[in-house]
């Protein structure tokens, strides 16, 4: 039993990494209706800004704040200068554009900092808490807490603020929003900026574990996208719950199903995901899309 709980707790901790990035993907999707493949690369680039500052002697917390501000600016800038030209068109071309950004930003990061993974300091100490024989590392606790706070804030932003309402309106129907007097252009920039800032937080949280390198989040991005889609693409809660679900299912399958073991466990959450999406195409927490004819 103890082992079972440990596997579940580990799964949640692993899922938290994917969840942080999935939240950013959901945010962009809600703000602009797009999926941003460059989300991970933007997060890594911002984390590299913190890394450079720390190397120059700036304290960790200050460096993190600067990185988050940088990320906001980067997100807003990319939206305004690059992505803007593809919004409202075919979503497929926009997706390809963000994949291009993924490659470009990765290359820029590598230009300055190289490809070699480098250690990154953590906000949390290395210790563990032992609850009835189940070990939880303080880093995981810290990551999960920050993630939950971000999730709640996002939910509040979209559900209960004017800014959130306006952003939802713009994502839903840019033309009508503009006609109603909403500053569509600025709202889109804010949406991307917020998402990038959130991505930077994710990057800062996982860099101590993954070591910082331009490709740090490439693989995590696949899980994050899976979590975002499973959760319903427009639901922050859904993204986080799905990310935890993926982490836990992967862990349990590896631990308890012998013929799956460590070799095949990666496939299990994806198989489950396909099954769920067949039954519920809108995802676990997504709202069903109804078109009036």
């Amino acid at each position, binding site marked *: 039993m103890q082992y079972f709980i440990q596997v579940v707790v*580990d*799964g949640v901790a692993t899922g938290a990494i994917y969840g942080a990035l999935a939240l950013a993907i959901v945010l962009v999707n809600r703000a602009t209706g797009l999926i941003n493949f460059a989300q991970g690369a933007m997060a890594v680039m911002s984390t590299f800004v913190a890394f450079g500052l720390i190397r120059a002697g700036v304290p960790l917390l200050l460096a993190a704040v600067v990185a988050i501000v940088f990320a906001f600016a980067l997100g807003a800038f990319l939206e305004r200068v690059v992505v803007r030209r593809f919004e409202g068109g075919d*979503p497929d071309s926009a*997706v390809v554009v963000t994949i291009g950004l993924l490659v470009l930003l990765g290359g820029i990061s590598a230009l300055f900092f190289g490809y070699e993974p480098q250690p990154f300091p953590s906000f949390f100490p290395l210790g563990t808490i032992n609850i009835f024989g189940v*070990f939880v590392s303080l880093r995981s606790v810290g990551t999960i807490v920050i993630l939950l706070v971000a999730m709640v804030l996002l939910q509040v932003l979209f559900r209960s603020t004017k800014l959130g309402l306006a952003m939802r309106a713009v994502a839903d129907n840019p033309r009508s929003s503009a006609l109603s007097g909403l500053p569509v252009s600025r709202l889109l920039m804010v949406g991307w900026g917020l998402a990038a800032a959130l991505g930077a937080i994710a990057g800062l949280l996982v860099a101590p*574990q993954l070591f910082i390198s331009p490709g740090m989040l490439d693989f995590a991005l696949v899980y994050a996208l899976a979590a975002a889609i499973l959760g319903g693409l427009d639901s922050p809660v859904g993204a986080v719950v799905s990310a935890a679900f993926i982490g836990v299912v992967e862990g349990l399958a590896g631990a308890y199903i012998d013929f799956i073991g460590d*070799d095949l466990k990666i496939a299990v959450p994806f198989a489950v995901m396909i099954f769920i999406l067949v039954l519920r195409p809108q995802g676990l927490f997504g709202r069903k899309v109804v*078109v009036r004819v």
Partner: protein
Amino acid sequence: MMNFQKTTRLSGAVAIAGIAALLISGCTRDAGGTGNGGGAGGGTEASPGITDDSLSLGISSPLSGPTAGPGSCTVAGLYTYLEAKNADGGFEFGDGKTRSVDLTYLDDAYDPAKAVSNFRQLVNEEVFAYVGALGTPTNAAIMPIADEEEVPQVLLITGATAFSEDQAANPWTYGLLPTYYDEGFAFGELLAGAGEPVTVATLAQNDDFGEDYLAGFEAAIEGSDVEVVGSATYEPSDTTLNPQVTELAATQADALLSAVSVTPLQVGVLTRAQSVGWLPRVFLPSNTSTPGTIIEPGAGGAYPALYSTSLTKTPVSPAVAEDEDVIAYNEAFKQYGSTITTTYTPHCVWSYIEGAILEEAFKGMEEPTRDSFMEALKSIQGFEAPLLLDGITVDTTRDDQPAIDGIELVQFNGTGYAPVESY
């Protein structure tokens, strides 16, 4: 509201891109692969790439991508040795001439297809020999072509057994480093000789890299009191090994063979095992055991013992700062190698030693031909190359083993590694 059809199309695009990303990342970190070839060599007058006063060498290694650090060092150490010697007047050859040796290096990003095209390009540009390239899958792809073209592909920086075990079948290919099998074997031997029952857990990368370690380890413990009580594997693309470590920790084994080649993951293993209350004696592979990048971030001091293997002195360690070879290496590297990379990995020293072995081969090379070079290269015995640890020598005359003979099991002593006394 976005209509339903759009959502499905978007999801489809996401799925395809996701699969592509999986495939790409699955390919880039592959540390395994084998190859084969056949045929025999023949000699001519003067081979391409050699004149009366110069000789050109070529190498293709990963200078970008996840393996860029080791790949750059693989070029930098060799470049350092060659340039320092050129500046010192050049290399003396067995035919009585003195030549300067130049090195052309290309980036293959650890991609076998790119490595093959680089190899062909180098051969077209008439390099005399292809030397010291890093990577098992990349070198495996080149091996049959080197054989066909009769171009030496030698002193390769890889621990895979495939490049040296059948030298009659692959006469133009030759490895430099003792194999991963040997490393695993050395650790198994230590445990088998403990004089008491020992339980072991193994954690291995799911490819040739991990399998070679396990094979060597299992061969060494056969028939002994050592029992493997738990084993797990992982993919190099995994983001965390916590689940595997949790599973192995449940065995509370006395020792852990951690055949993990990815730096952040190896650090994660060290932090994780101690945080779930498991403190085994840990064996770390030679390429993920550096104190500064693995043990310190992993708080490895908590374990009763950390073992690894070593071939060479570590020039960045203050303990050997007064050593003559180390001083020479550090001075030369600062002048030449540092133009290529400044981050130290053991590959810098390995490829520097490779330079010394080449010099030794040149001395025995009586004709300006590739055949003569291969013959000279394969006749070195008992050569104490600079920076090698005492007792480890170069012996190229064994027909199923790579150039460097011997491996030393070492133990972490708080700052660096020292020879192991006993279990």
